[in-house]
């Protein structure tokens, strides 16, 4: 219990400390110590609770509810003020509606509520806590070095790093709170704080583009927040004593009662996880500094969205609503991956890939059989690690070469070999056997076949999975091409960045090796406790994958073997003699240079067309879900 309180409150305290101090060196020290302590506390938490199953905690703090109420009103007021100032009236309307709903809940409906267990922990929370506590803190440390360079490169952006780190640590506290809360009111409170954090951090640079994108994110998340509030209102009307407000209690009360709030909360999860039709806010959020993209918009905040849907998966399982939510996720996976083919901006590729994989997790959760929930949790773990590694690598590369375009990353293995290798590990971790994401997709295919209407999802996975092979491979190809135009860059990587990248790359490989352990100690007991049966990967397959991983790791050492000298020649240019940097004498006696650029298949996979299709499809499905929902309520 003390660990939970520490993890929720300590980052909040650190946040206010960081807000006060503008001195960079003090900030460095404070962030590093705080990150270390949070990481340590997370590990202690893991060790303490990993075999204890579900544990509920009662927190008798009547004042907690009142504090939350006040903070929520302050935040609402703040957003109202900004919204009016920036003339974003949609945001103003949405926040007003939401605040009114919230006041209604707190002031009227929730007056007689007696909630006993506000906090809880089980294996799933442990996994999420590990992601936030370990990956999140690593990204914080990385951000120290990144933001220094960021402001050096962009002197026109006002240095508000104290606000930046304040918001980041507030966010960490909110994520812990979200994960550990059993009381839906508390979940809702922390949920809204993460929305605020995202809003402020996206708009950090205060350019008009980032302000607009920040408000877009805010509006879509507020929409989700309204649905969440709606779910709470429904629950309080159904049982005014508030006994259904606990997630555990709600889940055990049976499908009939829990379905409507589950769907509404899933809608909130869909907006937070940026599934179609709400994906544009995540793509727009890429204007934020890269640690923000890594922390909020790939490994943690958006995971909160899918986390809550996976929590309610047992409720959604086997229902039409669940199927529709699953389809929203599935088509997001298919279309998101397809759009990623036509993008050359590295962060946009990562954004669409994130959207696609979140869609896959929601597809698993929506259909919700026990095997699929197992696959979904695996996906969450692997995606968080690999994606954060990739974002941080892209951030490092961007600062070094001054561009985030994949075409400019040609020959990265020559320019920045260590970072290039880590990037390769990250990309391989996203789609290659025997790395994690592929294992999860494989498990998902096998699990979908047995589900009702699973064939649609199998088709989506088959086609979508192949599509991901394309855009990841061509990125890999660009990185490993030994481009004669480039030379090795001086190694100016700051130690914070380097250490964090190494740790994350090592974790990516390590988790692939030990995931059977994680599965048997955490995931399987969780699935077992929720569904009464659990899935697991067969022993043979695990051994085979371990062998493959081992083989992959030792193959590069074959280059150290002595060989009877391979002679180097330039590439074949159709007979045209070329200089070593690939300049050749073209027609009309003009010396030409060779440029190689990837296929982007814009006609087939163009963003505008597919995004339109995705938005329409997503919108249609959500509309359908709403109609069914209304039908159920009535």
């Amino acid at each position: 219990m003390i660990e939970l309180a520490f993890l929720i409150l300590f980052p909040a305290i650190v946040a206010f400390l960081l807000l006060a101090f503008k001195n960079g060196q003090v900030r460095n020290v404070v962030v590093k110590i705080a990150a270390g302590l949070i990481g340590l506390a997370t590990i202690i938490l893991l060790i303490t609770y990993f075999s204890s199953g579900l544990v509920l905690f009662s927190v008798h703090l009547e004042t907690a509810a009142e504090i939350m109420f006040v903070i929520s009103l302050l935040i609402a007021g703040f957003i109202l003020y900004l919204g009016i100032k920036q003339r974003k009236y949609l945001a103003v309307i949405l926040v007003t509606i939401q605040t009114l709903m919230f006041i209604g809940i707190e002031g009227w409906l929730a007056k007689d509520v007696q909630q006993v267990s506000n906090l809880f922990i089980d294996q799933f929370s442990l996994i999420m806590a590990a992601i936030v506590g370990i990956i999140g803190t690593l990204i914080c440390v990385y951000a120290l070095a990144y933001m220094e360079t960021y402001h050096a490169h962009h002197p026109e952006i006002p240095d508000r790093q104290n606000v930046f780190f304040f918001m980041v640590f507030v966010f960490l506290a909110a994520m812990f709170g979200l994960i550990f809360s059993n009381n839906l009111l508390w979940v809702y409170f922390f949920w809204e704080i993460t929305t605020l954090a995202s809003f402020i951090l996206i708009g950090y640079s205060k350019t008009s583009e980032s302000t607009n994108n920040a408000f877009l994110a805010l509006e879509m998340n507020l929409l989700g927040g309204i649905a969440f509030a709606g779910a709470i209102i429904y629950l309080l009307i159904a049982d005014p004593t508030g006994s259904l407000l606990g997630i555990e209690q709600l889940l055990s009360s049976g499908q009939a009662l829990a379905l409507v709030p589950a769907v509404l909360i899933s809608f909130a999860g869909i907006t937070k996880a940026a599934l179609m039709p709400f994906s544009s806010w995540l793509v727009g959020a890429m204007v934020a500094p890269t640690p923000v993209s890594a922390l909020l918009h790939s490994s943690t905040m958006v995971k909160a969205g899918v986390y809550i849907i996976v929590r309610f998966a047992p409720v959604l399982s086997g229902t039409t609503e669940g199927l529709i939510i699953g389809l929203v996720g599935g088509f997001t996976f298919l279309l998101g991956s397809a759009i990623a083919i036509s993008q050359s901006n590295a962060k946009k590729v990562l954004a669409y890939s994130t959207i696609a994989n979140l869609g896959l997790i929601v597809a698993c959760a929506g259909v919700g059989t026990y095997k699929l929930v197992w696959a979904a949790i695996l996906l969450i773990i692997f995606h968080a690690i690999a994606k954060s590694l990739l974002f941080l690598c892209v951030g490092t590369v961007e600062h070094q070469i001054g561009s985030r375009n994949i075409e400019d990353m040609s020959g990265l293995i020559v320019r920045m070999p260590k970072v290039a290798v880590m990037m390769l590990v990250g990309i391989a971790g996203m789609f290659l056997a025997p790395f994690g994401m592929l294992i999860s997709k494989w498990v998902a295919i096998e699990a979908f076949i047995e589900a009702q209407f699973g064939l649609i999802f199998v088709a989506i996975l088959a086609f979508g999975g192949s599509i991901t092979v394309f855009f990841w491979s061509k990125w890999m190809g660009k990185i490993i091409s030994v481009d004669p135009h480039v030379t090795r860059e001086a190694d100016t990587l700051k130690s914070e960045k380097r250490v964090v990248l190494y740790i994350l790359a090592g974790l990516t490989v390590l988790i692939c090796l030990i995931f059977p352990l994680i599965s048997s100690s955490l995931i399987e007991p969780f699935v077992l406790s929720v569904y009464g049966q659990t899935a697991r990967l067969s022993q043979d397959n695990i051994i085979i994958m371990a062998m493959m991983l081992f083989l992959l790791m030792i193959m590069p050492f074959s280059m150290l073997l002595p060989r009877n000298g391979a002679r180097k020649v330039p590439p074949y240019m159709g007979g045209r003699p070329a200089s070593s940097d690939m300049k050749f004498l073209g027609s009309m006696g003009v010396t030409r240079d060779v440029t190689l650029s990837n296929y982007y298949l814009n006609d087939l996979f163009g963003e505008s067309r597919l995004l339109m299709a995705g938005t329409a499809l997503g919108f249609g499905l959500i509309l359908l879900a709403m109609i069914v929902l209304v039908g159920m309520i009535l």
Partner: protein
Amino acid sequence: MMSPVYGLIYILLAPIAGGLVAGIDRKITARMQGRVGPPLLQPFYDVGKLFEKENLVVTRSQDLYALCYLVFMLVAGALFFAGGDLLLVIFAFTLSHIFLVLGAYASSSPYSFIGAERELIQIIAYEPMIILSAVGMYMVTASFFVSDIVVSSIPIVLYLPGVFIGFLMVLTIKLRKSPFDLSTSHHAHQEIVKGVTTEFTGPNLGKIEIAHWYEYVFLLGFIFLFFAFSLPIALLAIVVAYFLEILIDNTFSRVKWQFTLKSAWIIAGMLGLINLAVLYYLSGGLQA
């Protein structure tokens, strides 16, 4: 149950079988064209000669990628013949193909670059269909393990006719036969010189060739799975299917990648999906 012995046999004997298949291919092609053709063992002479040549590279990492291509092709095929999980086999094959693509990218040469892009398009063209084939086999035999599918007495191909035709179509892509030999070809198509294999010489090219032989044996084994209920019919099917591929190779010209991608996804994919959907509906859900 999986038996590593068969995997080992595969590793040792498949090059011989694959080389013979390649030799028969060239002989029949020659006869179709009214020529005498090379001796049956010609592919072995070719590979032997390649290992006698000097190793020219643009960058030394090409050696690594060619070796990885061969090694993981071996691993994937051995997994298949040892009776492993069919989906894992497919993904292991994808892994090995990616190494070939990376090898082509590494040299930063225009022709192998285009070859690599086209190879990737080929991969995404055939992969959905192959996954659907594996799914179809699961739906009929209730197991993903090759060891179970092979001993099953159910005539799989009768339940999966659409899937089988779709599979034959993407087999053309996998075997690099006209009209889908976009990225590299064994024949004289020289539009992008040799595509993915342009910058590989001597021993590296030899390794790639041997890896292709391993792949042939795997693909023929996959055809076998459809007919596993009866050995003579299966062997006949393999012979007929491969002959059909050679015939198609000699009668069609190469198409553009747009057509490859669209036809593989729309025709093969839809054939496969409709087949699976009908199967699902008829069997009233799944025998779990």
